[in-house]
């Protein structure tokens, strides 16, 4: 297929682009048998996951589409890109699997969109130049807007999608402006070449580079839902179908985080541009807003959405500390939060699918009727609440340790207080799901079908595995952090 198009996007992205291009055809051809497109998407994603794991073992890859490199579109895959791609495809595969039980209408429209979104996500992290980055970024964003409004007969979904579109487009515009400034300053769009050019004291004193930096942080911050750019997220994530919420909260917002890790460390070395304190303040604000707002929710998905904002705050804190340890913690927390938030949204989706309500009040006691889903949900909740022995604790420990190590005790204390807030609302949800008496709504629930349970079980096992044996995952994160911080 590379031969037909005579362009090579590297193996994994080739597969995904092929899937995205052909899946509408499969969807059209399978009018009589809508299951065919499900199978096609799942098998294709499984192949892509296998390919991304193989590729992760053999990075880095650089593919140029023309010469010289400074003016060429290029694919650049290093360990950070591969790491992100594996997470994206893994969560995408599990969401697709879950969707088999969850999405009952318009399957033929759903799976091509999902595939296109995953392609956009992977394309963003595989891009070696800012133009490709932007194209894939828009692919990801556009499909995300559409998927948020998948239930277009509900006003809530349309409104949320519209709000998301407006805010996210403003963010994208900010990114685009930043990219054009960077092009103006350095005369190239190639990410390695810009990184080379900006690493000098002269440019570090130039006010335009700071404008570009600020625009970039703001634009990526909108995508990552960093406070005060977060207000679209608590509307958009709950309105989407649950597997899409899992994708949005689990991985789509991590693209902004990826951008920050890539550009802030690559283009704007912290020792020259001193963005740390600014980011730390954003981080403290983001986690506090997310956690305090999550305390007040009655809608289970809205609560999870606010918790995502809080966890973005933790990751940004690790980034803002800008030490090896902080980066390690932040990078590992990307994986931990992606997997656990996917777990929580999928489990919440199973509840919603069973009784068709998102109100915590009405979901009381549902864990007794759906014990496997309930236990999986509790594992995810306890993990994100920072209970040791589960995965999120490991990365939170690293982040707090890095803050203390860098002498930023105040931020470490803020984060610890936030972890306590997080524990209190997650405990509240667990209490509601398992310990409260059942309501007339939750009594009618019954356990989710096996195809929806499989992703939950896989993610729960992952939580325990990383929690108990974090060593390999920590060392992967550390190696990536080492490539980012020279």
């Amino acid at each position, binding site marked *: 297929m590379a031969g037909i198009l005579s362009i090579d996007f590297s193996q994994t992205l080739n597969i995904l682009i092929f899937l995205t291009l052909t899946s509408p055809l499969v969807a059209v051809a399978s009018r009589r048998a809508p299951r065919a497109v499900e199978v096609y998407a799942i098998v294709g994603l499984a192949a892509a996951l296998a390919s991304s794991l193989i590729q992760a073992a053999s990075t880095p890859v650089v593919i140029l589409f023309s010469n010289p490199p400074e003016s060429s579109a290029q694919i650049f895959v290093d360990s950070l890109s591969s790491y992100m791609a594996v997470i994206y495809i893994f969560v995408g595969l599990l969401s697709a699997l879950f969707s088999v039980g969850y999405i009952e209408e318009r399957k033929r429209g759903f799976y091509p969109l999902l595939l296109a979104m995953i392609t956009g996500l992977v394309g963003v992290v595989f891009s070696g130049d800012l133009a490709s980055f932007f194209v894939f970024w828009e692919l990801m964003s556009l499909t995300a807007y559409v998927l948020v409004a998948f239930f277009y007969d509900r006003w809530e979904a349309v409104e949320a999608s519209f709000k998301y579109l407006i805010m996210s487009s403003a963010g994208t515009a900010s990114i685009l402006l930043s990219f054009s400034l960077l092009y103006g300053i350095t005369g190239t769009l190639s990410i390695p070449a810009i990184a080379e050019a900006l690493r000098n004291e002269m440019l570090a004193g130039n006010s335009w580079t700071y404008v570009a930096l600020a625009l970039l942080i703001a634009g990526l911050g909108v995508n990552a839902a960093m406070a005060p750019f977060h207000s679209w997220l608590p509307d958009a994530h709950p309105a989407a179908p649950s597997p899409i919420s899992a994708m949005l909260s689990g991985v789509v917002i991590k693209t902004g985080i990826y951008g920050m890790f890539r550009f802030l460390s690559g283009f704007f070395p912290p020792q020259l541009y001193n963005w740390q304190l600014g980011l730390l303040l954003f981080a403290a604000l983001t986690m506090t807003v997310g956690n305090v707002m999550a305390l007040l929710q009655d809608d289970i998905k809205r609560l999870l959405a606010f918790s995502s904002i809080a966890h973005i705050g933790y990751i940004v804190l690790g980034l803002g500390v800008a030490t090896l340890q902080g980066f390690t913690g932040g990078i590992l927390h990307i994986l931990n939060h992606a997997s656990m938030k996917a777990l929580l949204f999928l489990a919440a989706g199973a509840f919603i699918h069973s009784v068709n309500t998102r109100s915590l009040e009405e979901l009381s006691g549902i864990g007794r009727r759906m014990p496997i889903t309930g236990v999986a949900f509790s594992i995810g909740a306890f993990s994100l609440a920072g209970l040791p022995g589960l995965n999120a604790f490991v990365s939170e420990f690293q982040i707090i340790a890095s803050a203390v190590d860098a002498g930023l005790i105040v931020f*470490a204390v803020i984060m*610890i207080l936030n*972890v306590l807030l997080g*524990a*209190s609302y997650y405990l509240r949800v667990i209490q509601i799901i398992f310990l409260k008496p059942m309501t007339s709504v939750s009594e009618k629930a019954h356990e989710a079908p096996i195809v929806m349970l499989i992703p939950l079980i896989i993610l729960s096992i992952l939580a325990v595995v990383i929690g108990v044996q974090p060593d390999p995952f920590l060392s992967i994160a550390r190696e990536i952090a080492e490539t980012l911080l020279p």
Partner: protein
Amino acid sequence: MLLLASIFIQMLATPFIYLLTRARRRVGEVASAVASLIPFLIVLSLFPVVYGGGRVWESYPWISSLGLHLSLLLDELSYPFALLISLMGFLATIYSMKYMEREHGYESYMALLMLFGSGMMGVILVQNLFLFYIFWELMLVPSYFLIAYWGTGKPRVIGFKYFIFTHAGALAMLLGIIWIFTITGALEFSEVAGATRAMGASSTAIVIASLLFVGAAVKMAVFPFHTWLPDAHAEAPTPISVLLSGVMIKTGVYALARIVMGFLPQAFSAISSAVALLAVATMVWGGLMAMVQSDVKRLLAYSSVSQMGYILFGLVALAPVGVAGSLFHVLNHGFAKGMLFMGAGVLIHELNERDLGKLGGLASRMPITAMAFLLGGLSIAGTPPLGGFASEWMIFSGAMESGMPLYTAIAIVATAITAGYYLRMMRAIFFLKPKRNLDGVGDAPPTMAATISALLALVVILGFLNYPITSIISRAAASII
């Protein structure tokens, strides 16, 4: 392997016990009894080693990127705690079988009970701060569910309070642990100790010691961090009250002795005058509050607060005999308070009554329970020749030795308060005129009576035949100071 087994056998057995109890109740009960007996037998079998001055040390590879091993140590300091936890865990399991017979979700209860025991054993035996924190929180989760699901009164509110209070304390401790990690670059006890001792009483060391102290103090329910305890211990299902009041709060004592006093001795002595004040406030406040309770379990819970004040007082005296007294009082109070809660459980199980004002005249109907209440109360009040007398004597001598005559006087007077509320309770339950028809009311059913009798024997024996255990404890105290 022995120490590893003593922690993980209950954890690994958890799912099987859940399934077995669900399928065949009796089989599941036997399995849980065996799973909780094994750790006790292991600890008991290692007695000669520790008594002979040896230590049991095991180490397995774990997280190499943080320089961590899964290392376990049973030495003279951890031994009394391990003994208390494993024995009380076993007895509480046996006791639960009868006591919880009418409750629903019995299979989940048994599974959580196993997990709870495993968490407590882990806290005592692990030898690095990371694992210590993991097990510290692993105790919390099952005990939270046990309180919030099977508790009485308003269990969910009380469970929530319990979780958030102790979790907040744990996070303070976590910050201290992380701080130590960033300063010393190590988490293993053996590597941390030297580096932290070298910090002396610098202001950083004092802040870290205070953070760790807060974590331990919340668990120990030291005034003013105690308010979760009377709720949680009074409203938990009784076998869990036994474990909470008898055992779990002692892990706070262990944390204080092992980590704060062991790693940051000078910093701890710098804050010791404040801690001593808290200790005295705890014992007096707990005692006064116990005087005015009308609920049996609430009275016992406040008594635990008060007794934790004595234990803290002995530790903060920073004299070997005082520390030894505290460690010995951990055992005496653990056994006696466990027995008292079991006795209260008999009242609840047989009469469904726990209000002192509505009980009475039960002495002739419940001789074993009456004996348990009398001896347990007297031991805690420090009456010779029972176990509590010996340990309180040691605590007071330690405090006098370190020049705290005023506090010691208050502490001694406070034992009169202790005797006061226990005798008042005895009188109300067993001797006043019955307020209701007692026809057909008998003593505890056999399994419950058996567990109570076992503890009854221990409470008496520890009064005079205590040399083997006190010799271990004295060495532990000498190693801390």
